[in-house]
């Protein structure tokens, strides 16, 4: 791994590749990382950030967050804002798992109160929320009903009794991106997705019971405003997306864009995974409307999973979810493109922000975050590896530097196959149990691939976002129970 010699150090946490780094770059690329994290990045990150910088309509910089690593087209951790009038939209800037994201739920329980229930909670969660290869969810609906789900998102779920009204207010976009149009989605996508509502998926998707230890609270006031109020408080965090539905939408439009990109629009890209179309072209608009359906499917998926979690906690602990204080703290998307208003060179402009493995991090006072968080800044949920821990951050004013974007997770440093050679699933499960983390997995091989050592340090990543002034740390959570897809 070698950092390019052309890279310029702007500060301890901001590194810049000038437009002269690669022919055709329209803007410089900016990598947000400490020197240590920068050196851990694979070479491809720099090439991919440079390739993104060549896309038509890109504004200011092609960004990469501290958890950046190799991706398809865009690096994971990549952020690019395109001029809404002249720029392009690229499925490669969003990812195959559209609206892959994180949801965080509070409880009023402490670790001591549930210590003897963790195994039962995890085992029941594992049964109630299918995970792993394939998998059918508990919500049985027709294809026609599913079409309503993808246009309406999480509000559909709440109307069916899967959740609380306040959950919607505490979800990015209110759990529904307006303008979703299912006529722009293929039958294949519907057929892949319509029975997957309420499933976690596999790979790095997980559901965890976590503890907020007092020594891991970075900002007591802010933590309290987000609902973390007592020592050793229990929270539930989970990571999943739009399942086969979103993957198919991405695959379908990747092929459509490859067909028209050069012949119809004269666009050339370095990598087929950067296939794109002008945002205002019929293909670009169709993809945006289809993407919104996948975004809504993911919000709905996380909404019904939340409902299931509340049911399990209520059954095991003999109290209602309300009595257990199971309020959702927030839900964030980290694979998405959104039309947002940002100030560029003193002028407010509408831009299409691609965030791929990056989380929106609106600072205090910004529109688009719910009233309860208007003063605190938007909660940002960062998922770590199953062995180490995860974070709750808050958006800050300084995130305007990165079109209000920050990191999304820890980022892999070791390949899946290498991890399987180095770790054994069953042994890892035993070792984790001894350290107080009970894991129930759909696949031991899959478990080995997710070993903590295969990831960057989540502490380094979140610290880097704070040093760079694009978000701040509020609390760190350590896992005690994990459902692994």
């Amino acid at each position, binding site marked *: 791994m070698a950092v390019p010699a052309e890279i310029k150090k702007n500060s301890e946490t901001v590194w810049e590749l000038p437009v002269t780094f690669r022919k055709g770059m329209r803007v410089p690329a900016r990598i947000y990382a400490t020197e240590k994290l920068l050196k851990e990045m694979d070479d491809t990150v720099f090439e991919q950030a440079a390739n993104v910088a060549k896309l038509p309509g890109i504004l200011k910089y092609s960004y990469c967050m501290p958890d950046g690593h190799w*991706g398809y087209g865009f690096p994971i951790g990549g952020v690019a804002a395109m001029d809404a009038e002249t720029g392009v939209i690229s499925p490669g800037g969003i990812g195959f798992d559209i609206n892959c994201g994180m949801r965080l739920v509070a409880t009023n329980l402490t670790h001591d109160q549930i210590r003897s229930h963790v195994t039962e909670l995890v085992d029941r969660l594992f049964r109630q929320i299918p995970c*792993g*290869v*394939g998998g059918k969810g508990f919500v049985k609906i027709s294809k026609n009903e599913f079409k309503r789900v993808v246009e309406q998102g999480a509000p559909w779920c709440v109307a069916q009794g899967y959740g609380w009204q306040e959950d919607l207010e505490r979800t990015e976009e209110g759990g529904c991106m307006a303008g979703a149009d299912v006529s722009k989605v293929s039958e294949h996508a519907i057929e892949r997705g319509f029975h997957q509502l309420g499933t976690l998926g596999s790979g790095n998707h997980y559901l965890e019971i976590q503890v907020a230890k007092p020594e891991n609270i970075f900002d007591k006031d802010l933590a309290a405003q987000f609902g973390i109020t007592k020592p050793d408080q229990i929270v539930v965090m989970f990571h999943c997306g739009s399942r*086969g539905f979103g*993957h198919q939408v991405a695959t379908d439009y990747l092929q459509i864009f490859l067909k028209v990109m050069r012949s119809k629009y004269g666009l050339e890209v370095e990598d*087929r995974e950067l296939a794109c179309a002008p945002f205002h072209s019929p293909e670009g608009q169709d993809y945006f409307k289809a993407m919104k359906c996948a975004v809504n499917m993911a919000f709905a998926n996380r909404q019904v999973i939340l409902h299931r979690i509340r049911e399990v906690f209520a059954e095991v602990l003999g109290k209602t979810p309300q009595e257990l204080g199971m309020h959702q703290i927030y839900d964030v998307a980290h694979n998405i493109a959104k039309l947002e208003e940002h100030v560029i060179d003193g002028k407010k402009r509408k831009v299409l922000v691609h965030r791929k493995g990056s989380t929106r991090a609106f600072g205090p006072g910004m529109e688009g975050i719910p009233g309860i968080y208007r003063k605190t800044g938007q909660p940002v949920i960062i998922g770590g590896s199953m062995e180490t821990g995860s974070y709750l951050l808050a958006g800050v004013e300084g995130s305007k530097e990165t079109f209000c974007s920050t990191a999304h997770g820890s980022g892999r440093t070791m*390949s*899946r*196959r290498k991890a399987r050679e180095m770790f054994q699933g069953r042994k890892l499960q035993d070792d984790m149990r001894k350290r107080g983390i009970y894991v129930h997995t759909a696949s031991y091989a899959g478990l080995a691939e997710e070993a903590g050592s295969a990831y960057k340090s989540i502490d380094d990543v979140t610290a880097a976002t704070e040093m760079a002034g694009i978000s701040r740390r509020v609390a760190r959570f350590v896992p005690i129970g994990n459902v692994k897809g």
Partner: protein
Amino acid sequence: MPYHYLDDVAIADIAFEAYGESKEEMFIAASDALMNVMVEDLVTITERLWREISVESENLEMLLFQFLQELIYYKDAEQLLLRVARLRFKEQKGGWTVIARAYGETLDPRKHPLNVDVKAVTMHQFAVSEDQGQWRARVVLDI
């Protein structure tokens, strides 16, 4: 196994190379390589039912891309794990068609040792080539 997995191509995902002495063999090898990412032991997939899979594309490369994508589709839409038994190609003006017969059964975690799910076939370094009768495909899967 006429395929092997590549370590250094995809950190977060899985890449493989599949080969054969004909494009038929190579397509079958690539199908097994894909299925083997999800199911640890392919022998556990027994012949309970058959599906005909037919895909058209403008060139052989995109034909393989869409063919593999179709196997992922059956895994999600019908919960089917499939292995390709035989296939034939048709070349006509403007492209290729492949018609395959695949056997398999409904996914059952008690019977099939499952590994990780595949989200999609990617275009990253995707390539199909032929050299002196040796066919080769390079595929990176999104996990």
